């Protein structure tokens, strides 16, 4: 028997969503926007009436030759990825799901990308257009289904990672990529410093690398591209074969490192390429997992948030606390903004959401 994948019931409920928003604005009722509710841990809790996008679902247009897909926010991410895979294509940003119910809207709202990010780009890099319900309940269209479009301000990419604080994203148009012809993963035993030096060296040459993570004495690499170059690079680098499933386990935080049994908060450190070890007090090498070629470092630590954030800021990066996932995190999830930047966050929020109905407080208390 052929396996069938579940398909959603395509429907457009944008009018009803618009009406909800309009009424909420009228009454000044805050809304807690929810897709699959798989990434609630990534941000501050929101007090408000739940507005679910899950019924607003379906792929509205997909022409593989265009490399563009348009999809409603409530569509399950898995369903979109399956539709792309059928055509030999994929989402270049390799977004984490964190649960079977993850939606396309949640991917856009959080802007979280997977192991391929340093080489292929982030969620925002693949967004070409959006439909957005603004505070007046009207569905608006920004950007579009073309690769290049510089008419007006780039509101589409602004919404990525905004966590629903500026409006309700109802549909998104994304650039998609062909799946690579060949894929092979490797594991190379080597100390961290050597791994980082190698990555800096390889970064200057056109190797078919699309993922690089170091943990517990080994560098894990993924090669993707044409069969010829993948085979040649595999030959050149040597090492042991690694199951390609490693990257999904890393992306979905299913590796032992992310175990819930560890009571310490989980931190995400985002740092420039080639940042040396931060030498954080009390942090052992096993407490760190280097992803994105060292630019995204996961840390298990009870370290004081201010000390940690100061160290990251000195290195030109920032730190996000995901401890709240298990209800343990005390620190605010996102690093505080510089005062001038914070001021313009507030003025922008006040302009686009004057009643403060869209996910208030989700990113920062004032936004």
């Amino acid at each position: 028997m052929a396996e069938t994948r579940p398909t959603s019931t395509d429907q457009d409920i944008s009018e009803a969503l618009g009406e909800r928003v309009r009424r909420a604005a009228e009454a000044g009722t805050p809304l807690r926007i929810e897709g699959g509710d798989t990434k609630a841990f990534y941000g501050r809790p929101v007090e408000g009436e739940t507005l679910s996008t899950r019924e607003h679902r379906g792929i509205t247009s997909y022409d593989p030759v265009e490399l563009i897909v348009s999809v409603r926010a409530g569509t399950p991410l898995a369903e979109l990825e399956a539709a792309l895979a059928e055509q030999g294509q994929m989402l270049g940003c390799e977004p984490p799901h964190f649960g079977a119910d993850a939606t396309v809207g949640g991917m856009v709202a959080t802007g979280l990308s997977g192991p391929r990010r340093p080489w292929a780009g982030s969620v925002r890099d693949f967004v070409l257009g959006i439909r957005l319900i603004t505070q007046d309940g009207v569905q608006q269209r920004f950007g579009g289904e073309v690769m290049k479009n510089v008419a007006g301000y780039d509101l589409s990419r602004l919404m990525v990672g905004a966590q629903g604080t500026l409006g309700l994203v109802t549909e998104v148009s994304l650039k998609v990529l062909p799946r690579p012809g060949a894929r092979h993963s490797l594991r190379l035993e080597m100390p961290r410093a050597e791994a980082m030096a190698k990555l800096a060296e390889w970064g200057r040459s056109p190797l078919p690398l699309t993922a690089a993570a170091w943990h517990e004495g080994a560098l894990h690499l993924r090669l993707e591209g044409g069969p010829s170059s993948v085979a040649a690079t595999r030959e050149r680098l040597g090492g042991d074969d690694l199951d390609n499933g490693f990257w999904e386990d890393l992306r979905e935080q299913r590796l032992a490192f992310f175990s819930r049994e560890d009571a310490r908060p989980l931190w995400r450190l985002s740092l420039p390429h080639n940042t040396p070890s931060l030498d954080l007090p009390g942090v052992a090498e096993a407490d760190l997992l280097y992803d994105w070629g060292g630019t995204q470092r996961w840390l298990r630590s009870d370290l004081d948030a201010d000390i940690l954030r100061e160290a990251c800021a000195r290195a030109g990066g920032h730190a996000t606390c995901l401890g709240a996932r298990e209800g343990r995190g005390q620190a605010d999830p996102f690093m505080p903004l510089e005062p001038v930047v914070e001021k313009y966050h507030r003025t922008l929020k006040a302009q686009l959401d004057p009643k403060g109905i869209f996910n208030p407080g989700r990113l920062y208390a004032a936004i």
Partner: protein
Amino acid sequence: MNILYDERLDGELAPTDKAEVLADLQRSAPGLTLLHREEDLRPFECDGLAAYRVLPMLVALPETLEQVETLMKRCRALGVPVVTRGAGTGLSGGALPLEQGVLLVMSRFNRILDVDPDARIARLQPGVRNLAISEAAAPYGLYYAPDPSSQIACSIGGNVAENAGGVHCLKYGLTVHNVMKVEVITIEGERMTLGSEALDAPGLDLLALFTGSEGMLGVVTEITVKLLPKPETAKVLMASFDDVEKAGRAVGDIIAAGIIPGGLEMMDRLAIRAAEDFVKAGYPVEAEAILLCELDGVEADVDDDCATVRKVLEKAGATDIRQARDEAERALFWAGRKNAFPAVGRMSPDYYCMDGTIPRRELPRVLKGIAELSEEYGLRVANVFHAGDGNMHPLILFDANREGELEQAEAFGGKILELCVEAGGSITGEHGVGREKINQMCAQFAPSELTVFHAVKAAFDPGRLLNPGKNIPTLARCAEFGAMHVHNNELPHPELPRF
């Protein structure tokens, strides 16, 4: 349309007195170079859209950030509009001065501050030329990907303001995909950093919002860009077609084969002939269209892809397929394409360059539409496209000295943009809205969408002092011109200084 700022349609401005403003700025920003005599202002009266000319009230040429800060604070206090200019190569009049405004010229900020080969980034002042970045990165085997045709002259600050593109966008993205961080000075004279040398920054993605905002939200004073390793090899195939639509379909077929070319460009018969006459690139002058397909990456993969593309092109009905034998021939193939604008300029007293984008699948239909319009208006059109990403640059040939031809070219251009919007595309893919396409914005966006743009503007510049009259039309302007959609509101421009 009227080039001049029209307070009735573009919004009121506070009255300003040139002598007073000059005295104020001289007093508050000692050492700041200020030009105020007509003969000194004249070189700044236009950008790359040379038909649009306005003499600015004053030109400021700061050399320090403190001078920029002071300038912004004083202009805000005095209610004087500020138009920021980079190298002045823009094609949409984005740096067109205001009679009652200060033109802030950033060209003296022209230093490459740092190239870090291990982190693969470069830190730049805004006046650094686009090509100079790749030149500085070359010793490390790195380069900066976006390559607008004006890259030997245009500045990175202008590239950020316009979200500039080039011929490699499909694979390597636009400016927004290649900029990591910018330093900004706001209209209030505050400094802020957007983005990060890390791959993301906390908070809203204001970096994306500022990229392509045409100097309407702040002044960019420093840019950190991403550098990429130079591809091991790049090979280019040139395919001839006896039918333009066949060439258009071949573009889709290449993508459908799972290949993302580094560059995929198309030219039609008139453009081919013009280019061949001009640079002797070895183009087939008898062809109705050619495709240039560049494949880059690791040698072995590129060879495989060349073979695949060759098969696709044969199947698509190409009458001839040639692969550049060596680097010299590859450069020659590209020289024809990169010189297409001036080449066409040699064939006609005037031409008008459009910048619409369309979904790639619409290419054959839109090409046919353009050909029909060409007959209807009795004007020749040379088609040059970034075919891989659906960005069209039809060049309408006309003679402004002939009675009525100018108006015909305007109307024709308007029809082409209408066709693009109708096909699901955009009025501008990479040249920007500027002053040139301000009325056409009314055709692409509904009043409620424009209102959202105005709200964004108000968050950063509530007094509307940064580049007023550009990029986003007022609702009053759209009420007046909206009903006309994209007709009859372009001024022609004579030959543009393009490369």
